[in-house]
């Protein structure tokens, strides 16, 4: 049982490039989330999903897109990367809306 896994661990992008952050969970959780964490700013919700085929915006969705074609996977797409997207990105999952969220190890992204 690996829990929540994320790839890659680190990435450097140039301004305007695109990339996909991968997230997979093996706990059969319904809910999945993407957060970004900036120094001293806590965790901000980007997008979340309540099940396969259903996604919704969080607090800071601009510049990102998501899809959820399976229960296990919830990739985050960055189009036209900007320096403001330099951050640590965490994926999380939970069984229900008020249940414990389990976090992945994070992806450190730098946009230069």
């Amino acid at each position, binding site marked *: 049982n690996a829990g929540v896994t994320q790839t890659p661990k680190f990435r450097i992008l140039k301004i305007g490039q695109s990339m996909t952050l991968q997230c997979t969970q093996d706990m059969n959780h319904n809910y999945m989330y993407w957060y970004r964490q900036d120094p*001293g700013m806590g*965790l901000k*919700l980007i997008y979340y999903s309540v099940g396969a085929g259903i996604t919704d915006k969080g607090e800071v969705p601009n510049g990102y897109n998501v899809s959820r074609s399976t229960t296990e996977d919830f990739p985050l797409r960055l189009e036209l990367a900007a320096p403001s997207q330099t951050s640590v990105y965490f994926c999380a999952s939970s069984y229900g*809306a008020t249940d*414990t969220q389990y*976090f992945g*190890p*994070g992806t450190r992204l730098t946009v230069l």
Partner: protein
Amino acid sequence: QKEVEQDPGPLSVPEGAIVSLNCTYSNSAFQYFMWYRQYSRKGPELLMYTYSSGNKEDGRFTAQVDKSSKYISLFIRDSQPSDSATYLCAMISNQGAGSYQLTFGKGTKLSVIP
């Protein structure tokens, strides 16, 4: 006023000390209260979860919720160097129609000095 306020610290204490970490909130709709621990360069992990006013104890950790004062605390007894981490409070509010929102505090960085 932000919905959840948490002193970012940093907080430095000697080994064996009692640590008190606190968050205040303004939204009366918050119903569930959590403390997450985050080690450096790792993802957060749940430490304590409670949904009622009062105290909840788990080993050296005690979570306290005072809904009337909109105030939650985490106490760590006999602190150890392994407790050095950032502690994030988190709260869930009922948005209605089966929708819930989780809001995190900014986190308090704790260092326990041997």
